[in-house]
């Protein structure tokens, strides 16, 4: 009994299907969405077709027309203008959270992994205690103390996320630190900062980048949630979370478009960021 003999075909690399960036078609779409959102965050406030904050109650809940492509919201403002202008605060908040979290997380992880012993124990148990505070709860506390706004929310989320980041990076950093060539560098008398920033950090950089995109998604959801709850950005400022909150009553009255326009923006960016993060994580995992 002999089975067929197939002609050998050329080796097909998994990356061949995923293009040069290794993202795949879904990844490329995600990247385009994120870039578009980022551009809108920068220039959005200048390209609004109408004033995003000028109310005109007589137009409330009117559907799209030729010059108001997404119609009017609860106060008769142009939905498209508010979506464009709202990109800035919706993207800026998560960006600040991610940058600050990653900076603090990387430094804490470096110090803990490098020194070990008591310092490591202190940092790790400090992080463990911070775990006791869920992000939303911390944000509610911050809003109660400092008043509701974007910055208390950003501070609260930064505090809430840092333990996750620090714990994750500490593990990766410890792994990198225990590699023989790091010990070799130490013996050779390389300065500590040079080992940290020229050897340890590049080792965990792919993980930092991948985790940053995933964290961005989480931060975006949480900031939107806080704005929706009235503990974050305050109306009438244009912001996607605020838009969902303001226009929620429209859903019950049969005018879902304003709330959905903002929802779609949030979900699109979050899903894209998660997808990119996963792809980057796979790519960084494959390289090790």
């Amino acid at each position: 009994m002999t089975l067929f003999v197939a002609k050998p075909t050329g080796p097909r690399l998994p990356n061949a299907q995923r293009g040069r960036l290794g993202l795949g078609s879904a990844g490329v779409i995600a990247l385009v969405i994120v870039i578009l959102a980022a551009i809108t965050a920068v220039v959005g406030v200048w390209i609004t077709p109408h004033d995003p904050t000028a109310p005109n109650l007589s137009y409330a809940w009117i559907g799209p027309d030729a010059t108001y492509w997404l119609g009017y919201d609860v106060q008769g403002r142009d939905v498209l203008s508010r979506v464009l202008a709202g990109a800035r605060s919706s993207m800026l908040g998560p960006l600040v959270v991610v940058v600050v979290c990653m900076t603090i997380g990387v430094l804490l992880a470096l110090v803990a992994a490098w020194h070990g012993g008591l310092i490591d124990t202190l940092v790790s148990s400090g992080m463990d205690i911070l775990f006791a505070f869920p992000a939303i709860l911390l944000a509610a506390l911050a809003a109660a103390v400092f008043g509701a706004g974007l910055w208390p929310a950003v501070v609260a989320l930064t505090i809430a996320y840092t333990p996750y980041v620090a714990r994750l990076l500490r593990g990766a950093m410890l792994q990198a630190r225990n590699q023989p060539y790091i010990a070799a560098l130490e013996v050779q008398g390389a300065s500590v900062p040079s080992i940290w920033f020229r050897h340890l950090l590049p080792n965990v950089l792919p993980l930092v980048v991948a985790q940053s995109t995933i964290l961005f998604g989480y931060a975006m959801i949480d900031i939107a949630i806080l704005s929706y709850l009235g503990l974050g950005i305050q109306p009438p400022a244009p912001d996607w979370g605020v838009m969902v909150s303001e226009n929620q009553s429209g859903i019950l009255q049969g005018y879902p478009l304003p709330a959905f326009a903002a929802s779609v923006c949030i979900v699109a960016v979050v899903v894209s960021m998660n997808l990119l993060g996963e792809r980057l994580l796979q790519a960084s995992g494959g390289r090790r």
Partner: protein
Amino acid sequence: MFWRFLGRRGVMLLAAILIASFAIFGAMYLTPGSPIAALTGGKSISPEAVAALKARYHLDQPFLVQYWYWLTNALHGDLGTSITLRQDVSQLIAERAWITFALVAYAALLIVIFGIGLGIVAGLRTGWVDTSIVVISAAAAGIPSFIAAIVLLLVFSVLLGWFPAFGAGSGFGDVLWHLTLPAIALAVSAMAIVTRITRASVRQENAAEHVQTAISRGIPRRLVLTRHVLRNAAIPITTVTGITIASLIAISSVVDTAFGLGGLGQFLVRSAQSKDLAVVQGISLVLVIVFVVMNLIVDIIYAALDPRVKLGTRAS
């Protein structure tokens, strides 16, 4: 061994709660604005009355003494008085807590049944069943709870009229009916995460060499699945599911607000907005304790499921 582990974790738990309580009280102490003004609602009163109020609320004492009074009172169930509602905070919390816990329990049930169930199915199957579960869960994981809430509201309350749009109802069946949409909204993204972890864990265990060993010894497929694949995959699955469910306690404030359920979450948000500090402190303390205790339970289950765990650390 196990009891020592439990004891050590218990001490860590108390330390975490103590530090958390300190942080909660400290944050409130830092609040700009005079607590007297908050107590009097901004009305001007005589200096004697101010002094009396200060003495009554120990406001003339140093910070640590005030914290001590607050903590010992809290331990006795006295969390102070709400300035907006003029009622006992413990009482107010007790009236609302059941809604939050019922909501989280309902969502937890959905996560366990559908999240883990779909994950197992996707983990064991290949082809379109697996692909569609993977794609749907990837999308669902990105849906924030408040967006899930408004979509469900639109479709099932407004358009179809199957479920109520507001309130928590009364009586078991009615509450179940009222809480169905909120529980789904709360569970959606968590369910997706659990599904993905379950699928990955089942896949990983299914490919493990010890499973090959069992198959090579002629153990029936069904037993290989329950005794080896699912038994071992249960370790990461319970950990992730447990932590995810614990995190719902805080996120419940979103669906609580969206559906106007009147649970602890909505109360917390309203009190934070109106700067009703005693209430925010009280609810924060309760939620932190519940959250920490749930995480401890997850750790204990983890240690019980995995004999390799050095009783004391959670391998993440």
